[in-house]
C-alpha cells in the first residue's frame, strides 16, 4: 500500500508534501478553485446592495459579510496553490470560462430582501455542503473549510434575523421577504448538485475522502433544517409537495427542475454574462495597479541588492 492509500484508509490528512495520485490532485484543484471562484463572484449580488442598505446597522453587517467572502476566496486560492497551481492561472480560467463557479450566483438580487434570503438560504446551503468538507482528506482544504464555516454560520443567522424583521414588518416588507424566498428556494436546492444517480464524480471523490455524503443526502439535510426555520419566519416555501414523512423522519419535497440547473451551468442563466463581465472588467481595470506594484517591488529588490 502506498503512503497515500494508507493515509486515506486511516482517514488521516493528506498534506501538500505527501505523494498523491495525479487525478486526486486534479480533482482537488478543480473543486477548490470552483469554490474560491464562487466566493469571489458571490460578492457581486450582495455587494450591489451595500450602498443601498436601509439602516446603518444592516449596512455594517453586509459590508462585513462581503468582506468575509473576499477573505474566503483568498484562503481557498491559497489552499489551491498548495497543490502547485497559481492563483493568476486560476483567475484566468475563471475569466475565460474554463472553470466554473456556483450557479446560484447567476440569479439576480432584485430587492433588499434578496440579501437576507441569500444569507439564510445560500449561506445555509453552503454550510450544509461545507461542514463535512472540514473533515475531507486534504489538509489545507479541510482547515480552510473549518475557518470558513464559522463565518458562514454568522452570515446565515444574520440573514435569518433580517428576514424575520421584514416578515414581521409592514405588509410591503413581508411581501418582499416572501417574494425573495419564492425566488431563492429552488436555486438553493440545486446548490447540492445533480441527483446521486447522475453525479459523475461522486464515487471516486467518496473513495478519496473528499466527499463524505451524497448530494441527495445533503440536500435532504438542508430541507429538514429549512422547513421549521421557514415556519419560524412566518414565510412559506414555494413547494406544494412539502410533507412530513413520519417513517423517514424527514420532509418530502417536490421534483427539482434540473433542466434549469443545466441551462444555468452551461452559461444561460439570467446573470452569467453580467457576473463574468464585471469580474473581468475589475481585473482589466486594475491591471495597471498590479503592474505598478510589481514594478515597485522589483525596484526595491534591486535597491536592496545594490
Amino acid at each position: 500500500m502506498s503512503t497515500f492509500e494508507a493515509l486515506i484508509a486511516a482517514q488521516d490528512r493528506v498534506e501538500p508534501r505527501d505523494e498523491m495520485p495525479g487525478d486526486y490532485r486534479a480533482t482537488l484543484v478543480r473543486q477548490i478553485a470552483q469554490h474560491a471562484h464562487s466566493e469571489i463572484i458571490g460578492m457581486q449580488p450582495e455587494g450591489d446592495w451595500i450602498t443601498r442598505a436601509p439602516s446603518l446597522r444592516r449596512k455594517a453587517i453586509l459590508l462585513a459579510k462581503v468582506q468575509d467572502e473576499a477573505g474566503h476566496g483568498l484562503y481557498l486560492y491559497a489552499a489551491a496553490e498548495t497543490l502547485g497551481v497559481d492563483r493568476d492561472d486560476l483567475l484566468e480560467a475563471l475569466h475565460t470560462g474554463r472553470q466554473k463557479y456556483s450557479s446560484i450566483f447567476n440569479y439576480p438580487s432584485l430587492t433588499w430582501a434578496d440579501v437576507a434570503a441569500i444569507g439564510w438560504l445560500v449561506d445555509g446551503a453552503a454550510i450544509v455542503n461545507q461542514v463535512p468538507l472540514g473533515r475531507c482528506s486534504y489538509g489545507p482544504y479541510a482547515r480552510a473549510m473549518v475557518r470558513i464555516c464559522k463565518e458562514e454560520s454568522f452570515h446565515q443567522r444574520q440573514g435569518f434575523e433580517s428576514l424575520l424583521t421584514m416578515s414581521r414588518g409592514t405588509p410591503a416588507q413581508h411581501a418582499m421577504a416572501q417574494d425573495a424566498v419564492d425566488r431563492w428556494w429552488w436555486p438553493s436546492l440545486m446548490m447540492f448538485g445533480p441527483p446521486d444517480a447522475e453525479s459523475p464524480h461522486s464515487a471516486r471523490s467518496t473513495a478519496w475522502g473528499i466527499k463524505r455524503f451524497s448530494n441527495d443526502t445533503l440536500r435532504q439535510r438542508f430541507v429538514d433544517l429549512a422547513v421549521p426555520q421557514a415556519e419560524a419566519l412566518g414565510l412559506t416555501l414555494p413547494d406544494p409537495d412539502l410533507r412530513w414523512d413520519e417513517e423517514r423522519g424527514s420532509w418530502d419535497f417536490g421534483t427539482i427542475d434540473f433542466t434549469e440547473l443545466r441551462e444555468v451551468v452551461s452559461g444561460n442563466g439570467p446573470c452569467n454574462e453580467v457576473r463574468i463581465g464585471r469580474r473581468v472588467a475589475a481585473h482589466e481595470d486594475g491591471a495597471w495597479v498590479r503592474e505598478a506594484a510589481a514594478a515597485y517591488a522589483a525596484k526595491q529588490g534591486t535597491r536592496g541588492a545594490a
Partner: protein
Amino acid sequence: MSSSSEVDTGMVLALADDALVASHRLSEWIARAPSIEEDVALANIALDLLGQARLLYALIGDEDELAYRRPAGAFRNAVMLERPNGDFGATIARLLLLAAHQHALYSSLAAADGDLGAIAAKAVKEVSYHRDHARAWTVRLGDGTEESHRRMQDGLDAEWAVWGELAPTQEAVDWATAVITQATLRVPGPVLAVERQEHTADLDELLSTMREVTAVHPGATW
C-alpha cells in the same frame, strides 16, 4: 475643546458626515478593486469609517434619522468626499489626504474627556491603518510604472486642490508632503483653507442611492 456634557454638534456632524460619505464611496469599489486583497482592504476601511460615523451620530441623535431622513442641504461633509471615485489613483489620493487629516484631528480630540474623546481614541487606531495603507499605495503607484506615476499624480492634483475644505492641520500637510516626496511625486502647492463648500448634485445622487430602499418603505424598521 468640548467635554462630554457639551458636545459641539456642528463639529460632530461634520466628522460623522465626512466618515459616512467617504465610506459610501469606498464601498462602491467592492468587487471592483484591482485585486482581491484590495477588495478586503477597502471594505475594511469603509467599515471603519461607517463605524466612526455611527458612534458620532449616536452622540447627537438617532443614526438612521440623521443618515436617511436629513435633507442633503443639512449634510456637513466636505464636497471632495462626495465626488465620484475616479480611478484607483484618485481613490488612493483622496484616502491619503482624508486619513492624514482625520489622524491629526482625532489625535487631538482623543485627549478630551467623555464619549467624544473615547470615540476619537478608537478612531485614531483605525485611521493610522488607513494612513499606512494609503501611503503604501501612493509610494507604489508614484514609484511604479510611468502610467501609474501619471495617474497617481493626476489623482493627487485633483484631490489636493480641494483638500483645504477639510482644513488639514500643518501636521497633516507635512505628513502628506513627506509621503508624496517619497513617492517621487510633485507636491501640488500650498493648501488653501476654504469654507466648506455648497453640496453638489453628487451628494444628491449618493443619498438617493443610499435611500433607495427606505424611500419606498416609509416608517419601516429593518
